[in-house]
């Protein structure tokens, strides 16, 4: 459905040199556990960056730091040159970072349309007077939100399902709706937490094209987490490998594949094998 028709190398060349996100020595501990430990990297505009690592490596915690669910214990995060660490999640979203969740978190008892409509709230600025008395301003802004929401649903092929309760969508549709919802907040950076989880090989192929297509069409950067090595390697020109909260390797897929540190983290040391 979504054909980006673009190779990994071409993706690599697309990157501008504008630095969108930068982290410096980011750390957070839970009790004695160092979930994220001194992570520093930066992200360029129009880049798809993959983060991989074994279970419990701190990938989702890293996302939670970016999206403001946690404030870092030490270290700093800059987005478009401005510090965002410690901001509330809704303020971070206003700055232009949107995310999806590992275990889909839709507004599951509401309709598909309402799921998108809710996050369009930043487009309306009418007050109580306007909504109580059904003024011109209220109607215009509400119509605009409705039109835009339908447009989003159309892009993601969910238009005919706009009336359906979100929890009754199929798993794949729910994942797509969650991405659509995140994009409806008009982010500059999209964080995808396991976008290919629970999918078969064919669906994963489709997901790769969809993500590339989103990057090109919305002109944004994407960071994604996944366990599936081939999925990430086919999608991301640059990959970060986390283990025990630390970056153990960073670079293009070719380099990651051969890195002995990465092999050790995934397969264990030779003496144990």
């Amino acid at each position: 459905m979504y054909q980006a028709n673009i190779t990994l190398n071409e993706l690599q060349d697309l990157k501008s040199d504008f630095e969108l996100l930068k982290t410096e020595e980011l750390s957070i501990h839970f009790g004695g556990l160092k979930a994220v430990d001194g992570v520093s990297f930066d992200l360029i505009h129009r880049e798809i960056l993959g983060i991989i690592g074994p279970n419990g490596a701190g990938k989702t915690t890293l996302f939670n730091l970016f999206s403001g669910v946690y404030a870092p214990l030490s270290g700093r995060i800059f987005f478009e040159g401005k510090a965002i660490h410690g901001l509330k999640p809704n303020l971070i979203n206003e700055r232009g970072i949107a995310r999806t969740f590992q275990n889909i978190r839709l507004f599951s008892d509401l309709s598909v349309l309402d799921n998108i409509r809710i996050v369009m709230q930043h487009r309306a600025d009418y007050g109580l007077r306007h909504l109580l008395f059904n003024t011109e301003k209220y109607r215009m802004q509400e119509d605009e939100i409705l039109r835009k929401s339908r447009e989003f649903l159309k892009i993601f092929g969910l238009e005919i399902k706009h009336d359906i309760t979100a929890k009754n969508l199929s798993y794949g549709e729910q994942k797509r709706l969650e991405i659509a919802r995140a994009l409806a907040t008009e982010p500059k950076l999209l964080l995808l937490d396991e976008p290919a989880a629970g999918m078969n090989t064919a669906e994963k192929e489709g997901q790769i094209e969809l993500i590339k297509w989103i990057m090109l069409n919305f002109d944004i950067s994407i960071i994604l987490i996944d366990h599936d090595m081939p999925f990430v390697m086919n999608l991301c020109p640059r990959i970060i490998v986390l283990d025990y909260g630390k970056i153990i390797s960073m670079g293009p897929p070719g380099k990651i594949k051969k890195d002995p540190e990465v092999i050790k983290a995934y397969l264990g040391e030779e003496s144990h094998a």
Partner: protein
Amino acid sequence: MSLVFLENITAIAGIMIILAVSLNLINGITGMLSLGHYAFFGIGGYFGAFMTVQVHKLGIVNGVTGLPIFLMIIILSGLAASLAGLVISGPSLRLKGDYLAIATLGFNEILKIIIENLDFLGGPKGYSIYSELGNRPPLFRSGITWIYLFVVISIFVITRIMKSVHGRNFLSIREDEIAAEAMGINVAKFKILAFLVGSFLAGTAGVLFVMYDKFYANPRDFGFIEGIPVLLMIVLGGLGSTTGAVLGAVTLTLLLQLLKLIPGISNQPVLVYAMLLVIMMILRPAGFMNRKELSDLEIVKKIRARISGIIKK
């Protein structure tokens, strides 16, 4: 059945509708389990009673100024209650589910005990406008007209809010707070807002109740246990549906009033609540309306379409 009895039932139903609709905004729509709604009801009642006595003592009430002064008192009592709403919305930002329920329950009981210990509000005996005014009734009172004016205002305000971005923000908090916040919705602001609007309306219900015919604010009327029927009403109607809240309020009020006619059961309302809840859980666990509003029903849509068709012709 005498006319007075009918009038009383209608009045009580109206007050219950305001309470149920406003509690539904907090519990059903925004998804915060609040058990302290009668605290707002009580504050509105006491504040209204106290203000009524004060304006009478000042001697500014006569046949002409009575109505506007009473309207002012109703609004001020609502504002007094929403001040308490602001206080309780503080913990709501940090507590969820059962914990918030316990905090709001405690808030309600604390408030009741404070009022019982304030001598200028009559202490545990309650605050009687009659005796404060030297056994004379106040020059204004609430009645069916006043009560249903505020019923209409409550329903109108809440239905309009629910058709706006603000209303959808409330819903998103109920559905998934973490996702809502990650999608740029100021969860804290809208939780506070839900409490402010809900407590304001409950406060107005309080004055209307006290000023109906008793002219007497009794701390025993405003405990959390007394508030349980309102919770039952919105559950019966279907949590989250304003139409359901209205239906639940009317049904339960009628039922309880009719049961009063049957000797033996009339002093066991809790038994009736429990039975009603069990029956409801079996027959229709999502309540009468199952989160739908009147305007969502197929038949209403059809009628609307037909009416607009006739108008076009």
